[in-house]
């Protein structure tokens, strides 16, 4: 024991100093734990949770965005198909309308032509009648003129005059 005691003494080991150092360490441990480690670990944990939350939300948003993209594409496809159908329908209708209009126009044309023919024939008839009436009147006036003349006065000049008159009247 004596040899051990002297060894401790030679190495400077003293139980009071040993205890002081141990107490010093424990006090520092308690202070650091309370003021540094606990709040620091809490902040790190909180930040990690926030980052995780943000990542989860971002992932969810990404999935939602993809879903929306698919929906939008579907809508666009549907709208495209609908617009093609509408255009085709409009074209069909336009074609039908065009055909009916052409048909109507042709009918109208025929009608107008028939009317014009009738009108023409009517006018021709009227003209003919008028020509005949005028011819009769002319003949009548010619005869009157001829009767009014003296036979001896009937000469070449008078005949020419009468012919010119008829020419002029017709």
């Amino acid at each position, binding site marked *: 024991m004596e040899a051990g005691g002297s060894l401790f003494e030679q190495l*400077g080991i003293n139980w009071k100093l040993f205890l002081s*150092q141990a107490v*010093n360490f424990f006090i*520092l441990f308690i202070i650091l734990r309370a*003021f*540094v*480690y606990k709040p*620091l670990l809490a902040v790190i944990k909180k930040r990690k949770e926030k980052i995780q939350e943000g990542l989860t939300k971002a992932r969810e948003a990404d999935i939602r965005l993809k879903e929306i993209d698919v929906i939008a594409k579907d809508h666009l496809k549907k709208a495209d198909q609908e617009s093609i159908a509408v255009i085709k329908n409009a074209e069909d209708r336009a074609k039908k309308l065009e055909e009916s209009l052409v048909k109507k126009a042709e009918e109208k044309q025929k009608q107008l032509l028939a009317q014009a023919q009738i009108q023409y024939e009517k006018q021709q008839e009227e003209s003919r009648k008028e020509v005949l009436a005028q011819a009769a009147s002319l003949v009548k006036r010619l005869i009157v003129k001829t009767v009014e003349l003296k036979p001896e006065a009937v000469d070449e000049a008078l005949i020419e005059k009468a012919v010119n008159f008829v020419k002029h009247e017709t």
Partner: protein
Amino acid sequence: MEEISLKAQELFNIGSFGVTNSLLHALIVSLTLMILAILFSGKIRIVPGNVQSAIEMGAEWLLELMESMLGSMKKAEQYFPLVATIFVFIAFSNLSGILPGVGSLFIKHGHQEISLFRSPAADLNFTLAFAVISVMVTNIIGMMAVGVFPHIGKFLNFKSPIMFFIGLLEFVSELAKIISLSFRLFGNVFAGEVLLTIIFFLTPYIIPLPFLFLEIFVGLIQAFVFAMLTLVSISLHTAVHEH
């Protein structure tokens, strides 16, 4: 040349209690760390500043290392304060021993001049206290993790003579841990102090610089080794063995 002493020198007495230069140094270091801790606690924010970022980076690095050794982040967070305090205190004590003025301030004590400060780890009381704390706390942690009797059963096993002998070896290894931990740290730091004293005595300018850097490196490495050995001990004591 300054007298090289294996023991820390007594500066003054408080009653029958003699305050040594290494104890004074350790108290100053711990007081400084406490003040810094209290000042820092008021500045901890969710969006960190430069200092907080640096501390967080170190803390997270240590946590990841502990997680890889202990197997879970929960365990790592649980034992982080002990391992971190051991590392921080020893590292700051070792580094503060190299600060200018630490080895060159003397006071008169009787008829001899005594250095006012001495690196705490250059005193066996400091390293022994840390080693005893490390071994005791890791055993307590082991008891809390696996149960008191299963833990004691590692040392006192009467199932067979071989198991009893293994238990005895386990007990001896725990005692050896105290000696190896304390003497490794003490040896390295004390040897560094002696080396620096001799180098400064022989060539005061330029030449001591690489040795100063070496001491900074050794101081940090020794703090890390001590903390890691404590961590390994925690890992071994908290592991549940299947029989």
